[in-house]
């Protein structure tokens, strides 16, 4: 489906995740974050960039990996994206919903 986010037409799947990372930019991220109840700060961007990089390198994401990334620890990750960090951060980063159970 298509939606207008930050003045742009964006393709989303039925759970609201971007289907094409090329359509992502910081304004899109900020608006999706707002929908998730998150105000993006300087602390959020490195995490989002890390997730995108992992996605581009086809590395499956997990909370454990994020915790070991050196970008953010698990406690900070939960604090930055409360109520489901991996899911919410992935949606804001414009990458698919991770299928990880860990």
């Amino acid at each position: 489906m298509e939606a207008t986010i930050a003045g742009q037409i964006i393709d989303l799947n039925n759970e609201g995740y971007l289907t094409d990372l090329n359509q992502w930019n910081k304004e899109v991220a900020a608006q999706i974050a707002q929908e998730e109840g998150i105000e993006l700060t300087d602390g959020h961007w490195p995490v989002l960039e890390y997730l995108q990089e992992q996605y581009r390198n086809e590395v499956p994401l997990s909370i454990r990996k994020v915790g070991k990334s050196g970008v953010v620890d698990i406690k900070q990750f939960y604090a930055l994206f409360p109520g489901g960090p991996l899911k919410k951060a992935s949606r804001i980063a414009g990458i698919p919903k991770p299928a990880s159970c860990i």
Partner: protein
Amino acid sequence: MDPKTMDNPAEVNKDARVKKMMLILSKATIDNVYACFILANGARMEGIEAEIFFTFFGLEAVQKKKLEHLHVATVGNPAMHIPTLLGGLPGMESFATNMMKKEMEKLDIPPVGEFIEILEASGAKLWACKLAMDMFHLEREDLVDEISDVITVGDFYNRAQGENTHLLFI
């Protein structure tokens, strides 16, 4: 559940979803411990509160000296698909456990000690059962630091409050 909402989880009524998982771990075989930890961690990943009550043999999973030495049961476990007599041979449990640990590492499943750290960092609450502690003559110092406190079953039930709270015995 409405078949329509089955297809699209986003349409599920948010008020009806699980809000809190209260898990009771009573066993120390590695498969049970991981089932419990993965359920608790999975809950936190979905924004669901999670608490674990470690009781009876489940306490082994949070004892400093024992947590890295948990085994899978090779006897009396039909899912192992090996004859019971073979399963009882010396070294079989270690062999099967090592095989299992290797497979889990491949899937990025952390060892027990690290998993406990992850659970604590993710905001899961970990409790030890007072009665079981007394029974096994354990002291608070025998347990990992991530345990919030030693409490009674009554205390644990009192924490199981609020709508859409679920209790699960493992």
